[in-house]
């Protein structure tokens, strides 16, 4: 699936990219809001440098798009392609998780 490849080749930015996509899936957010949101739902702190490296990559791949800036802040929105990519990514993780649960039934409780 092409969208898998879009996010799969991000290397060390793959994980923060996924978190950013998840954060944007609940609506457009600007940089600071993404960082707070990610910190609140996953406990992961994304530094500003990492965040913008990820935003640039996602934007380049067409998975997110910038909106009109509001004062000095610019919100980003998930594109349809980004939503599809996130969906495919989550399905893949889900599949992996179920496979893991089958192998480790003791931990399922």
């Amino acid at each position: 699936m092409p969208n898998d490849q879009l996010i799969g080749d991000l290397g060390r930015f793959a994980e923060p990219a996924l978190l950013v996509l998840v954060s944007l899936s609940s609506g457009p957010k600007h940089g600071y809001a993404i960082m707070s949101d990610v910190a609140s739902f996953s406990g992961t702190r994304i530094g500003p440098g990492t965040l913008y490296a990820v935003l640039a990559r996602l934007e380049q791949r067409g998975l997110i798009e910038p909106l009109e800036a509001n004062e000095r802040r610019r919100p980003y929105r998930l594109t349809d392609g980004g939503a599809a990519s996130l969906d495919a990514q989550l399905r893949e993780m889900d599949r992996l998780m179920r496979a893991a649960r089958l192998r480790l039934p003791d931990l399922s409780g």
Partner: protein
Amino acid sequence: MFAQPSAPLVRLAVRAYPRAWRRRYGVEIQSLVVDRQVSWADLFDLVLGAFDARLHSQLAPRPALAAILPARSVPVPSPALPAYGAMPSAPVAVQTRRAFLRRMLGAGIALVSLEFLGGSLAFFWPQIRGGLGGKIAVGTIADILARQPDFATGWPYSHPPARAFLINVPAAEALALGLPTSVPNPTADQLLVLWRKCPHLGCQVPELCDDLKRFTCRCHGSTYNILGEKLKNGPAARGMDRFAVSINADGVVVIDSSQITAGALERGPDHLVFTDAHPWDAVCPY
């Protein structure tokens, strides 16, 4: 006190991003680091991000996004200049001229350095392949005897390319003592090569004189025995200098004029290796 990096430090980190990147994201990043209390870890993250942005310049934002950018507060040099992306030709030309001059200066310096380096290395390269200063083949002993039969009875064989006398030592000693002996097949260690350059001031030492069997330099009268040792007369401070000599596998006598042994210092008649039949102070009649 230093729990958080100071604002100028953070601005510096943001400035480490490439220009095109700053045009696109600079305002956002600035506002982000103002909104949020920036930690040292965040600063480090910013610096890493700047490295990343410079490494992946293809990530620099595309011109198509110019439309949604906010107007810049700083006036842009050319009215036609977009905030980033494709540059109009005029500023590019100015930049290119400056870059071109700088590059030419660099290239010129590099060229001069290269020439200097090359010249220095070439200076150290050995220039001498043959002739005086290198190895000189004289010929086999048979060749030498064919050209000069009395070499067997001790007469020095002059080899002009080497500017040297080849001496058949045992025969020469006998000759100088007045007891001529033929040594028709001397070995390499029975050979001696005397450089015909007088160690005094460099005049060419003439042939052996017939009566004394000595060499006397015509310039200042320095006199040497048949083995080139300095005798009493003349200003030279030492005996004649010697070249290394060997006989190769083909029986050819080879003079190595790059290996020079300075003649022994003059220290009186008792220190001579060889004493001939004549007085210490006898001089060839020139």
